[in-house]
C-alpha cells in the first residue's frame, strides 16, 4: 500500500538482515495515519539533519506529576497527525516476564487510543507506549488501571521505575530475589514514584550477582548488587570434567565445540586476587582473599557456585555526565542481608533521601551531592561506619578535615598565650 509521504532514505533501512523499524512502522502505518505522518516527519529530519519535535511538553494525568512525556511536532502543518505525539511510560513487571494475554490486552488499548507503536522497553525499564494525543491520556490511564491493574512509570524529579535482572527466575548465580526486591521498592515508594518531590531524578536497580546484567552500578543512583560472604561451592568432579574436556567452558559462549579447559591459563592466572590453585586433581580457593568477581564461576558454571550466605552490596551515586561528569556507584554498604520485609534497606533508603532532599540543590543527583559535601557527610547521614571497602585507595593529598570535637582543645585558641611562648 502506498503511504502518504515518500521516504526514500528510510526505505534504505529496510535492507539488510536486522529487523527493520521502518518495515515495522510501515506495517502499522497502513492502518494508522499517526504512523504515516511519523515516517514523513522522520524522513524530513533525515533530510534536514535536525530534530522536528518542539522543546519540552507538560502533560499528564490527574493525581500524578509524571509518567507521560509530552511531545509536539514543529511542523503540524505538514504532519497534522503527529501534532501531538506523547509518550506514556507504563510500569513493567520486574524482569519483564509477560503472558500473551496481558500483552494482547495492552495492544488492544493502545491500538484504540494511541499510535500502535511502542518501545519494548525504555532503558530504565518501562514499557513505553509511543505516541498519542492529550485527550487520550486519561482514557488510556483509566483502562490501564481498571482493566489491566497496571500503573504508569516514573518521569521527572522523582523515583523512576525500578528494574532488576532476571534473578532467581532463571539464573543459578542470583544471590537475590531481584523481582521481589524491585516489586517491594516499587510498591512501597509509589508516592515517590508518581509525585515528584526530589531535587532530581532517582533510580534503583537490582542485580542478582556482580555480573550485573541490569547495569545497576552504572545506571542507578542506588545500585543493589547480589553477593555472598561464605565460600564458593566447588564440585571437584565437575572441575575435572571441564579440565578433561567433557564440559564446555563458559557455557559454550566461546564456541560449543568440546575442548579441554586450560584451567591454569583461563581461570587460575586470570583470578584478580590469585587466590586459586589447581594441583592437577583438585581446585582450591582461598575464599578469604576472593573478591567475588564471578570470573571462575562464569567459566565453570557446572562446577562452581556462589556461596549460600547471600546478600547485597549497596552502592550509590551512578549518573551520566551532566553536570559534573559521569560516575559509577560507590560502595556504601559492603554487605546487607536482603530478605523480606527489607526493613534494614528501607531505613537506609529513607535516611539517604532525607539527607539528599535536605541538602540537594535543584537538579543535583545524589552522586553529585556526595561529591560536593563528601562521602563522610553522606556516611554520617545514613549512619554507616567508614570501611576500607568503600575506597579504591586512600587519599593522597593531606587536606584532611577534623571534627573539632575530635581534637583536644577544639578550635578556640588564645592568641595571647601563643605570643607568650612565641614572640613576634
Amino acid at each position: 500500500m502506498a503511504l502518504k509521504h515518500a521516504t526514500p532514505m528510510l526505505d534504505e533501512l529496510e535492507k539488510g538482515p536486522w529487523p527493520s523499524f521502518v518495515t515495522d512502522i510501515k506495517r502499522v502505518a497502513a492502518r494508522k495515519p499517526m504512523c504515516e505522518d511519523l515516517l514523513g516527519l522522520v524522513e524530513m529530519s533525515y533530510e534536514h539533519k535536525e530534530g522536528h519535535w518542539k522543546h519540552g511538553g507538560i502533560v499528564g494525568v490527574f493525581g500524578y506529576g509524571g509518567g507521560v512525556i509530552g511531545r509536539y511536532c514543529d511542523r503540524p502543518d505538514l504532519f497534522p497527525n503527529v501534532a501531538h505525539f506523547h509518550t506514556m511510560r507504563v510500569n513493567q513487571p520486574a524482569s519483564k516476564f509477560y503472558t500473551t494475554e496481558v500483552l494482547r490486552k495492552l495492544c488492544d488499548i493502545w491500538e484504540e487510543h494511541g499510535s500502535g507503536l511502542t518501545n519494548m522497553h525504555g532503558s530504565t525499564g518501562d514499557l513505553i507506549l509511543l505516541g498519542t494525543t492529550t485527550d487520550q491520556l486519561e482514557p488510556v490511564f483509566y483502562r490501564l488501571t481498571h482493566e489491566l491493574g497496571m500503573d504508569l512509570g516514573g518521569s521527572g524529579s522523582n523515583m523512576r521505575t525500578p528494574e532488576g535482572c532476571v534473578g532467581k527466575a532463571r539464573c543459578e548465580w542470583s544471590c537475590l530475589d531481584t523481582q521481589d526486591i524491585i516489586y517491594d521498592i516499587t510498591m512501597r515508594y509509589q508516592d515517590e514514584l508518581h509525585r515528584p518531590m526530589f531535587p532530581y531524578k532517582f533510580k534503583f536497580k537490582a542485580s542478582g550477582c556482580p555480573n550485573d546484567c541490569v547495569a545497576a552500578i552504572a545506571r542507578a543512583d542506588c545500585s543493589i548488587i547480589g553477593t555472598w560472604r561464605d565460600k564458593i561451592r566447588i564440585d571437584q568432579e565437575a572441575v575435572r570434567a571441564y579440565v578433561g574436556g567433557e564440559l564446555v567452558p563458559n557455557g559454550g559462549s566461546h564456541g560449543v565445540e568440546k575442548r579441554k579447559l586450560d584451567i591454569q591459563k583461563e581461570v587460575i592466572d586470570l583470578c584478580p586476587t590469585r587466590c586459586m590453585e589447581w594441583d592437577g586433581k583438585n581446585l582450591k580457593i582461598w575464599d578469604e582473599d576472593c573478591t567475588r568477581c564471578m570470573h571462575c564461576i562464569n567459566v565453570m558454571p557446572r562446577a562452581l557456585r556462589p556461596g549460600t550466605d547471600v546478600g547485597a552490596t549497596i552502592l550509590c551515586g551512578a549518573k551520566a555526565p551532566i553536570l559534573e561528569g559521569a560516575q559509577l556507584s560507590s560502595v556504601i554498604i559492603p554487605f546487607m542481608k536482603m530478605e523480606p520485609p527489607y526493613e534494614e534497606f528501607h531505613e537506609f533508603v529513607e535516611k539517604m533521601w532525607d539527607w539528599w532532599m535536605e541538602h540537594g540543590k535543584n537538579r543535583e543527583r545524589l552522586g553529585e551531592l556526595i561529591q560536593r559535601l563528601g562521602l563522610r557527610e553522606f556516611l554520617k547521614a545514613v549512619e554507616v561506619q567508614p570501611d576500607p571497602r568503600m575506597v579504591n585507595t586512600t587519599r593522597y593529598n593531606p587536606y584532611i578535615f577534623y571534627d573539632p570535637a575530635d581534637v583536644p582543645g577544639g578550635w578556640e585558641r588564645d592568641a595571647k598565650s601563643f605570643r607568650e611562648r612565641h614572640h613576634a
Partner: protein
Amino acid sequence: MAQIEYKGKVFNLDEDGFIDSFDNWCPEWVEYVKESEGIQELTEEHWKVIHVLQDYYRKHGIAPMVRILTKVTGYKLKYIYELFPSGPGKGACKMAGLPKPTGCV
C-alpha cells in the same frame, strides 16, 4: 500559539496551555484554567499556593523546588495534589502564570 478570550481578557497559550508571559497573568486566568486542571472551586488555599509561587518567581526568576513550596506553604505534597490534581508543576505553576517546567520531565 493559540489565543483565547475570557471575561474580556485575551491570553496566548502554548500547546500545554501555559500562558506566554508571566506579565500577562491576571486573576481571570486562574478562573479560566481551573476546570481543565480538575478544580471545581478555588479556595484560599489554592490562592496561597499561587501567591507563594508568584512571589518566589518575582524574587528569584525561577519556580521554587517542591521542597521549598511545601515548606513555605506548610502544605504537604499530598495536600498540594489534593488542591491541584495535576501537581505543583503542571497545575499550580500553570495557574500562577509561571513558565512551563523544563528538563527531564
